[in-house]
Structure formats: C-alpha cells, structure tokens
C-alpha cells in the first residue's frame, strides 16, 4: 500500500507521520505541493498512491490540492469537503448548529455598522475572529464600544475576507479549553490547554500549556458528534467548559499534536496512519 503525505511545510507532525508510516512497512512519500504542478483537465495515473494525508498548513493550498488529487481517484484525509468546512469558522459553526451541537452564540455581519449592532446584541463584550486562519491569530476580545468600532473600521481597509465580521459571545470558562483528538469514530486523546498569563487565548502556538485531559463520556459524545457532523476524518475538536455544560467552538481539520503526544502518552501519528490504511482499503 502506498501513502502520500502532502505538505507545504515540514513540521514535527509531518516527520512523525512519515516515521509512523515507515514503521508500518508502508510505501510512504512526502510530497511538497509547492514543488508540483497538476494537469487538472487531463486523466493520468497519479503518483499519490492509494491514500494521501493532507497536511498543508495553508488552507487555500490544502483545500485546492486536495480537490485536485481526489479527482485522480485518490482518497485524501481530510477530504476537500471536510477541509472547506473546518478551514472556515463560520462554515464550522453552521455545521455544529445544523446538528444541534452546543456552540457559543455567534453573530455575523458584513459591515461595520451592523457589526456594532451585533456587538451591542452580545452585551458589548464579544470575541472577534477571522473566519480563516488559526493559532489564535487576530482573535480579539472586544469589551469597549470605541475599541470595537475601531477594529471594525480597520477591517474595512483589509482583504475582503475581513469584511466577514464573525463575533462570538465571550464565554465564562476556567482559564483553559479542551482539545479532543478524533480519528474516524474514536476519541483517541484529549488535552486541556491552559491559557498563558496575560492572554485569554489558549492556543499552544501562543504559549498555551497542554495537559492531559481524561476523555469523559460527555467529551467523547460531543467530540464524535462534532466530527460526524462534518464527515469521516481526523479532527481536533475544541471545546469550552461553561456554566451550562461543555460547548464546541471550533473543529480543526489539519490538527497539530506535537505537544499532545507527550502529555497524553498516545501515539497519535500511528493512530492516524492506521485510520488512513483503513480508509484506503474501503
């Protein structure tokens, strides 16, 4: 069986997935999509094997290359359909709502004027997030009318995606969130991510500290439900412990796990490769 690991950058995760594939005796190749071109209107035998893991850090490169490689009859994990949803916070929120999965109240507007009305609707305290991108980049807590107005105005001078004003209620929770790792129909591990001092965001990319989190029934059910809502795949399901129970606020489709393997003791890359083998056989 031949497996391909697609990437635009090689991180710890890509090397770990590569090693895990070798250990299972797979014919594995690392392909940098930046080093390829794709004759999309031609049919040809692809070199991408039976299944490909989409590990591109860039949402656009990952989504588009996944769609192309799927057109060659190769199964891609995660699929372009899944990546389209997980890569965009609004699409993820709509999927969660469609499947009655508790998620923070979210209001979306397309102009500064309506964004201010949404901000008032949320009690003049809200978190604004770009619908694309991650690692907590540009996720901001707005808790004053004038600073909110300033942020909205500045966005009008940025690329069009920033005129999608995605505002979420500020959820009261302990200084941590939960990331559950879902592979296929299993929650294989979970971590708490403790926010660093001086920040309300918990991303480990911003200094959030990972700690093992026991996978309770509530976490497992919610994580599986969120994953099933989007499609069979490999996810990082992000949750918050609120006063009214656990809510899912985001589902990530190119999950990072460097800090999680050590604190959970779970061989996450090996589980992902097992899942890829299973998908390739279907």
């Amino acid at each position, binding site marked *: 069986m031949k497996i391909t690991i697609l*990437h*635009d*950058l*090689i*991180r710890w995760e*890509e*090397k770990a997935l*590569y090693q895990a594939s070798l250990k299972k005796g797979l014919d594995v190749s*690392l392909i*940098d999509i930046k080093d390829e071109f794709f004759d999309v209107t031609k049919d040809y035998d692809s070199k991408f094997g039976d299944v490909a893991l989409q590990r591109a*850090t*860039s*949402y*656009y490169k990952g989504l588009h290359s996944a769609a192309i490689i799927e057109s060659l009859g190769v199964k891609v994990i995660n699929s372009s359909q899944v990546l389209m949803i*997980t*890569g965009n916070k609004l699409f993820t929120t709509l999927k969660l709502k469609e499947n009655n999965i508790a998620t923070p109240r979210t209001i979306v507007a397309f102009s500064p004027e309506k964004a201010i009305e949404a901000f008032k609707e949320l009690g003049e305290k809200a978190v604004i997030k*770009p619908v*694309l*991108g*991650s*690692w907590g*980049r540009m996720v901001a807590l707005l808790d004053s009318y004038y600073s909110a107005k300033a942020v909205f105005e500045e966005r009008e001078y940025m*690329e069009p*995606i920033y005129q999608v004003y995605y505002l979420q209620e500020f959820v009261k929770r302990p200084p941590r969130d939960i990331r559950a790792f879902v592979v296929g129909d299993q929650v294989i591990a979970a971590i708490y991510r403790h926010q660093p001092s001086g920040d309300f965001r918990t991303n480990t*990319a911003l200094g959030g500290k990972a700690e093992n989190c026991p996978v309770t029934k509530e976490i497992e059910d919610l994580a599986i439900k969120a994953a099933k809502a989007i499609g069979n795949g490999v996810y*990082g399901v992000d949750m918050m412990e609120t006063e009214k129970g656990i809510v899912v606020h985001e589902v*990530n*489709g*190119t*999950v*990072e796990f460097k800090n999680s393997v050590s604190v959970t003791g779970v061989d996450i890359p090996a589980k992902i490769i097992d899942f890829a083998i299973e998908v390739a056989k279907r």
Partner: protein
Amino acid sequence: MPLTAKCKECGADIEIPDDALPGEIVSCPDCGLEYEIVSIQAGKVELKLAEEIGEDWGE
C-alpha cells in the same frame, strides 16, 4: 561533525539536525531568521528564506 550552513543575514552557523528533511524550517541561533531547507546532498545543504506566516495558515 553536524552539517551547518551560514546565515545570510548575520553570518552565524546554523546547525542542521541529522534527521532534517527538505521542506523543514531551521532558524538562525543568533538572529532568529527562519530558513526552509531546499536540499541536503552529499554533505551540502541549500537553504532559502522561509515564507512569512500566511493569513490562512493554521489548523
């Protein structure tokens, strides 16, 4: 002797890990500039400046 490359910015030696692969990011220990490994062949390593973090990067 681990493989090294010269930082184009400050001239410091950048140590290349033994298991490094093309496409991987290494950063200069002195000035912190990040490079992407282009190739590693016969004890020689080629680097290029790493891409800026894109707005659509991330999970």
